[in-house]
């Protein structure tokens, strides 16, 4: 298959799953006639018709709610948030209804809620969210956050086939910046399984989403000083691959957790706590977290760049750990 962008990987996953399974449909704002705000669903209306590519009013509660109700009737809906920031409008339905139905009633709501997240595109405070932390504490919901085109496709297919509600966080900065050769054959990436993106022995960086590329740059730089960095691409936030984290920490004894959401109460705090609880004896230095500053994402490009994590901050943390 020719080189496929991250966004095309998402479109392909939806298209292939809809062709494979009539229970799958797409519902959201401007997903049909407009083709999606980012053109993620471009062409799907022509292929599958208006009953399966459903344009809705601006109604996040009803989008997630209707998807959940249809899921209770045996469907496999994909609900698009035009920007994942807007998921807060439908938060109640996702965490209190969709995520709890399995536990309360033994009948899960297999929906995928997906949409563009992340900063770096000067979207400003309402169009740049990394929302995983506000869903981390709500059992019943799975959360994935692909950082490659391969994973974007494979994880979305896995999410659609999963019997549970899955929050699928796609990073809009990567939409057209990432291109990969994808397999021709059908494949999925299992939810809950991390990818060791780069093997190393001196230091571990645990990360996901667009921060993979910040980690890559930092690791390249460190390699010049003969520092061997292991990069764990978590890919799934819930459930997360604890074994992969602990194995890497046991090997390198030094760890940086890198994420794009703000520091305080971020998902990294949970991973740091797990490492402290389960791998304390392996640590040769404190756990470091590199994250966005605890501010809303500002619009101004220089301010935004200052708020988001970058290579310089990762390198500084790495050198502190190595010198500890």
């Amino acid at each position, binding site marked *: 298959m020719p080189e496929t962008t991250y966004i095309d990987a998402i479109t392909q996953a939806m298209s292939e799953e809809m062709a494979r399974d009539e229970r799958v449909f797409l519902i959201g704002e401007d997903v049909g006639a407009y083709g999606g705000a980012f053109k993620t669903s471009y062409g799907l209306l022509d292929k599958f018709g208006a009953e399966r590519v459903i344009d809705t009013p601006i109604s996040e509660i009803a989008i*997630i709610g209707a998807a959940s109700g249809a899921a209770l009737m045996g469907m496999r809906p994909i609900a698009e948030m035009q920007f994942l920031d807007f998921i807060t409008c439908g938060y109640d339905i996702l965490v209190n209804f969709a995520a709890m139905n399995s536990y309360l009633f033994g009948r899960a709501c297999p929906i995928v809620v997906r949409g563009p997240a992340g900063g770096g595109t000067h979207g400003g405070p309402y169009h740049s969210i990394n929302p995983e932390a506000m869903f981390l504490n709500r059992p019943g919901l799975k959360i994935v956050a692909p950082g490659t085109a391969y994973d974007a496709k494979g994880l979305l297919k896995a999410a659609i086939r999963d019997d549970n509600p899955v929050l699928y966080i796609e990073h809009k900065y990567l939409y057209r910046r990432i291109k990969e050769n994808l397999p021709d054959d059908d494949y999925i990436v299992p939810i809950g399984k991390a990818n060791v993106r780069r093997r190393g022995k001196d230091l571990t960086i645990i990360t996901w989403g667009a921060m993979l590329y910040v980690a890559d740059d930092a690791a390249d730089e460190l390699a010049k000083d003969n520092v061997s960095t292991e990069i764990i691409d978590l890919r799934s936030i819930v459930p997360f691959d604890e074994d992969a984290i602990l194995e890497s920490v046991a090997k390198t004894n030094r760890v940086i957790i890198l994420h794009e959401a703000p520091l305080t109460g971020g998902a990294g705090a949970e991973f740091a706590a797990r490492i402290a609880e389960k791998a304390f004896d392996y640590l040769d230095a404190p756990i470091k977290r590199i994250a966005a500053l605890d501010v809303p994402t500002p619009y101004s490009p220089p301010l935004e760049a200052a708020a988001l994590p970058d290579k310089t901050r990762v390198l500084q943390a790495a050198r502190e750990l190595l010198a500890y």
Partner: protein
Amino acid sequence: MAKAKKESDSAVLDAACAPEWTEILKQMIFIRRFEEATEREFRKGKIGGYLHVYIGQEAVASGIVGALQKGDAVFCGYRDHAQALSLGSDPNRVMAELFGKGTGVSKGKGGSMHLFDVEHGLYGGYGIVGGHLTLAAGAAYAKRYQGSDSVVVCYFGDGAMNIGSFHEAMNMAGLWGHQGMCPIVFVIENNGYAMGTSVERHSALTDLAARVRAYDIAGEKVDGQDIFAVRGVADRVVRQVRETGKPYCIEAVTYRFSGHGAADILQPYRTKEEVEQHRHRDPINILRKRLGEVCGLTDDDVKAMDEWAIERAANAVKFAEESSQPAPDELFADVVAEHGPRPVSEDERE
């Protein structure tokens, strides 16, 4: 409150002496006795948390549910015991749920507000006001998508009409109705109060049925204390919705004789006189009187029904009491569904 019109559907009246009506009376008496039993068990501390009973509103549950057929789906709010019982859920398992026992319809993990019994068409009592309207609209869409002629009934209180999910669900249902893709009957259980806030104090427009017109959904009021009226409207509306795939809204004007919840003892938001006045229009007495006058139902007949109902409610309490607590491993069961093609959970890795 605007006057609800009386249904004078002759088919309903002609059939008033059919044995079915005696069964309906029996069922309503049973719901009443069941609810009274739950209130007693709550006071004894056997039922924990929060308890909301349907006393005074029985005709709304029985009347609408009676018009449904197999495959139809019901969604409702937290005042959900009567819907479950009307749909045919096992009263023992409903009571056991209220007791938090493993034999409950939701395995003791939901409680009073969260009954669920798909086998009988109940897709949930939901404890957060209004959210279930959106689920019900999506369920109705799915029914049509799947080529089924089933309908969805969605009950909600007058208070639910002021939360955002109501407006989003109604608008979407109205739109989907244009394509015949939303076979849903919305039932407003207008009992006059959102908890303790009266309709006049919570809704800028007090003609509630009129409010759905804004979403191009037709609606009408019905006297929710008169089971003949409710059933008459329900038969017609359910048939129509099944045929057209267009949503419809029934505002059942009713009244709850009990407090909002079991802890609502003082009821400072309404007077005793007001409650007494409404008690004169007890839905059970209205039906009973009619069957007595028209069909010769005797006091002894009613007494026999009542004894049956009391005993059945007592048996449910006994069943609930004697049932075991949920098994300890139930704590972890079903947090996520594990039977799918690819769910990889932490538990599976260990």
